[in-house]
Every structure is written in structure tokens, then in C-alpha cells.
């Protein structure tokens, strides 16, 4: 029975840890994407809402850009 318990714990443990790692990776990547989109939007004078859409800033907000 010890073998059975060891087997179950190891296999399920591996699967659980890997699944956890996947979720963590996805969360970290989502944050990176949000950061990139926000900085891109700021660079061209837009803001980003939570759905990732870009909106024009109110005048005076964001980096001054000569030709836009």
C-alpha cells in the first residue's frame, strides 16, 4: 500500500505543480502584455482601459509629440 500511496502522491503532485506553474506563467505574461500595451499607448498619447482598448488622452496628458 505504501507503493500505491507513493505512486499517487508523486504523479498527482507532479501534475498539480506543473498546472500551478502554467497558471503562474500565464499570469506573469498577461501582466507583461498589459505593461507593453500601456507603455505603447502612453508613448503615442493614448490611455488604455481594462479591456485593452486604447482611448485618446485628454489634451495635455501624456508625452508631448510634435507631429500628432
Amino acid at each position, binding site marked *: *500500500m505504501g*507503493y*500505491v500511496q*507513493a*505512486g*499517487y502522491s*508523486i*504523479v*498527482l503532485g*507532479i*501534475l498539480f505543480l*506543473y*498546472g500551478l506553474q*502554467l*497558471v503562474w*506563467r*500565464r499570469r506573469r*505574461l*498577461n501582466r*507583461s*502584455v*498589459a505593461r*507593453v*500595451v500601456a*507603455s*505603447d499607448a502612453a*508613448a*503615442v498619447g493614448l490611455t488604455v482601459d481594462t*479591456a*485593452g482598448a486604447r482611448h485618446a488622452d485628454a489634451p495635455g496628458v501624456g*508625452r508631448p*509629440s*510634435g*507631429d*500628432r
Partner: protein
Amino acid sequence: MSTNQHVPAPPVQSRRSLWTTRIIGITALVATAFTVWLGLWVTPPDQVQGNLVRLVYIHPGVAWVALYLAFGLAALASVLYLWPRTRSLYWDRLAAAAVEVGVVFNVCTLISGSIWGKPTWGVWWAWDARLTSTAVLLVLFLGYLALRRVPAEPEVRAKRSAFVALFAAVDIPIVHFSVLWWKTLHQGATVLNANLSPTIHGSMAWTLLLGFIALTLVFVWMLLVRYRIGVLEDWLGTGELDVALRERQAEGAGLDDDEAAA
């Protein structure tokens, strides 16, 4: 100011696909928990194998996922990528996700098989066709992943990986038959029967089936999440560079303005 270079639209995941993934994940979790409960407590010990039969509820499940589902999917996706008419990076991403998840299941297969084998056959490992092919498959999977880590253009990397997957797919049946002959043609081969007793019935049969279903669901959930990770990584691969470029250009533009003003 610098050229009007937007990063491409961020890869937003539709609510439907996000919720599909979540529901599959929850179902997988429930099914696995149910399997464990049935396997460890509800079902009776086997007449021949005793409590060891409980490992049979998960070992064939992970094996089927690793060897046939994951690897088969990866091979199919690779062929679809290589075929010019169906070429699309979606297939490459799917293959990569399937291989990575497949490696995890492959390791689980070898470990669970080994743990079952020790009290049954007395050895941690036996050089029979199935075990050896599984081990070779793991090495081939790892080679695929190692090759993917080499930085390259997405299309180049996709093509290279697809070829490796194709060659591996061709090799596995050959390895399997070689080892099969190796053991059976050689005089004095011990008869290690890796086959399960075919007369498994009652609650045990249902638990076995549930085990298959639960682990398949786990695989599907992992595949979906890993695929999503691939999408995000690919997008970031281009997005970050564009942002860095623009910031660099903006620095230069700022300097020019200052110099012009001076």
C-alpha cells in the same frame, strides 16, 4: 516625432474561450479527485495484485495521454504545419504545447509504471518494448524542447521543430519493434507481462474509465493554458522589441529637439 509604429493589437482572449478553459479545468479537478477517492478507498483490492491494482487507475491513463494523445497530436500538428496548404503558426504552437505537456505526462508514466513494477516484478525497470519505447519517446520529446529554446525566427523554429517531431514519429514504431524482437528472439527472455488482466470488472472497471477521462481532461486543460502561454510569448517577442525601439527613437528625437532649440 518618430514613425507611427504601434505594437500590434494585444492578443485578447475571448470570454468564451477563457470560460471554456476554466470549466474544463474545474471538471478535470473534480474528475481527478473523484478518481482518487474511488481508486484509493471505494474500490476493493484485486484478488491477484492486492492493493497494487489501485495504481492501474492512473498509470494507463497518463500513459495513453503521453504516448498517444500528446505525441500523436504533436506529430499531426507538425505534419499540418509542414504541409504547405495548411501551414500556419497555430499548428506549430499547438505542437509545442502538446509536447511540453506530453513530457510531463511521460515522466508520470515512467514513474507510475516503475512504482507498479517494483513490487510486481521485483525490479524498478525492465527492458521490454513498451517501457523502452516510452523512455526513448521522453528523450525525443526533450530534444524537441531543447531545439525550440534556440532563438530563431518563428517560421524557422517552427519548421525545424516540425521536422524533429516528424523524424521522432517515424522512429518510435521502429524502436518499439526492435526492442520487441530484442526480447523475444533472444533465448531465455524472461516473460514480463506488462499487460493488465483483461478481466477487470465492476467498480474497478468504472474507476479505470473515470481515470482515463479525468486525466484526458487534465491534459486538455493544460494544453489550452500552455497554448495561451505560447500566444502571449509570441506576441511579447515582437511587442517588447517594438516598444524598446520606439523608446530608443524617442530619446533620439528629444535630443534633436534640444539641439534645434539651442
